[in-house]
């Protein structure tokens, strides 16, 4: 997989976490954009497409899960995979999220003791194809 072709959108309101993700992924040649809110993410998605979203759940404005559904509603979700990166250990994937193709292995709990997990998760997220009618599953060019 050529990482430099993969566009990653990081959404986290904690600057140090946001930066750590961006820096780490950039070191592995991903194209990374990091924003601090769901609102910013939606704005940027209007103009630029992304392959993977790494989304924090508790955000200051709209929450991470709401963001994912908004992206889906925008019709931008069909080409995008999601990784949830949260500190809320009591979070469980909802049925809707599972239907959107967000698998349990795409749920990463903070702090990441070993960030190579993140690389693995991106690969997983890209290879798993959304099956949700909401997303109208399409076949990603491999």
């Amino acid at each position: 997989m050529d990482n430099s072709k993969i566009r990653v959108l990081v959404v986290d309101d904690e600057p140090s976490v946001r930066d750590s993700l961006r820096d780490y992924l950039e070191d592995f040649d991903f194209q990374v954009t990091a924003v601090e809110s769901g609102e910013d993410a939606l704005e940027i998605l209007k103009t630029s497409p992304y392959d993977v979203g790494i989304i924090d759940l508790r955000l200051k404005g709209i929450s991470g899960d709401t963001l994912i559904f908004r992206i889906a509603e925008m019709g931008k979700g069909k080409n995008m995979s999601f990784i949830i990166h949260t500190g809320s250990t009591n979070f469980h994937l909802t049925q809707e999220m599972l239907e959107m193709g967000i698998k349990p292995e795409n749920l990463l709990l903070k702090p990441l003791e070993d960030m190579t997990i993140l690389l693995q998760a991106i690969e997983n997220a890209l290879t798993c194809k959304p099956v949700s009618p909401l997303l109208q599953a399409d076949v990603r060019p491999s």
Partner: protein
Amino acid sequence: MENIHHKTREELIAETERLRILLADSDLKEQKYFMLFNRMIDGYALHEIICDEKGIPSDYRFIDINPAFETMTGLDRSIIGKRVLEVLPGLEPEWIKIYGKVALTGESVKFENYISTMDKWFEIIAFRPGPGQFACIFIEITERKKQENELRRLRGLLANIIDSMPSVLIGVTPEGRITHWNEKAAQTTGVSAANALGRLLTEILPHLEIQMHHVFDAVSRRATVKETKTPELHDNQIRFSDITIYPLISNGVEGAVIRIDDVTDRVYLEEIMIQSEKMMTVGGLAAGMAHEINNPLAGIMQNIQVMINRLRPEMKKNRTVAESCGASMDVIHDYMDKRGILTMISSVLESGKRAARIVQNMLDFSRKSNSQMAPCHISDLLDRTLELVSNDYDLKLKYDFRKIEIIRHYDPEIPLVPCEATKIQQVFLNILKNCAEAMASQHTSGYTPRFTLSISREPDLARIEIADNGPGMDESTRKRIFEPFFSTKTATGGVGLGMSISYFIITENHGGSLSVESQPGYGSRFIIHLPLEQRGGKH
């Protein structure tokens, strides 16, 4: 009819005797006889006995009856001259036998009889007024009988109610003499009611001495006195009682009822509830805190990992940037290494990991785990944990795990056990460390600390035993070892969560059991039972 009920036995006998004399006196004027006869409120009947050829009474004939008899029995004077078996063909032969004896021997009889056809109770006095004759006086006692029965029933009911009470109920006089002693009191004290009644309460229950002033108090103030959760030492165990004293003031008789309820179980249950509430509070706090702590931890740990990456000489990007700064990555790395910075960075990451695990442990305690159950080799798991613990050398407690002798009794036939490996490992770890610390506190010369580990199969269960030869535990420690926040490790400041978390993991998460056998001087033996099949779809 009413005054009959108050007739004493003596009066009745006197009356009967009077009648007998009157009847015997043949000189008595007819009129006088009839007056008495007719005015009698009691039923009266005179009979003549009829015997068969063998001289055995077989029937009797009515000679005379008075109006009261007519009223009572519903029979009228037409029966006079008739035989009883003519009038009452269904009469039991027993009657003829009884009356026959009276008529023949002259011995009076007195008995109570229920006549079902009339639904009435009678007291019957039969005597012999003359040879071959017998007279009966019928006194209706239905009402008295009813009252007696009712009284008996009420007494029985009351006794039953008092005896069926789960409380100890003791009636006492103001002086403290026992007037009532229910079944529960007998059970609890081992003293029967017969042995207790009339004695001083303090003779039987000396610890109630202090309650006696409450008895006086209750009686004099005519108010209930209640004392809750009174502790009392019972076979070296503290039992708690609620003691309530009710004053009894009726018909001028003073006294009190003492009610004692053993509330030990409730008190302990309350304590457990307080404990579990405490744990829930901790759990709730932990869940809230976890998010707050995990985020900054992510900031620390994830940036450290980026730093580690950016110090790698083999990474092309690092080399490019280093060169643009006029230094080589090898030089930078060399410097970092020599100044110990790389080690420092690693230790920051390690500290972060530890903090993350503490948060995780707190959370584990507050919620049911949703991680996966998988079939495990329990013996491997135990050995791996042992390995983990053996690297642990506690400076403060000065125990060296490598000095501990280890004996294994593993059943090779033990099947795979479905469990959460990391959780079970945590339990093993807690137990092993606790035992190791206990053994480290033993300073007898020539003492070799020793673990005996055994794994065996019981039907549907795997049994894992971890035994040490340390100092053991006294009963109070043993009973409380699985309680949250119970810690004997005052020196090291243990929080006392390890064993209770272990208990929780085994019982709640795995549906197994965890117990401990121990006595001072004989080491401790922890016994874990894990079901070989997990129920409830926890796969």
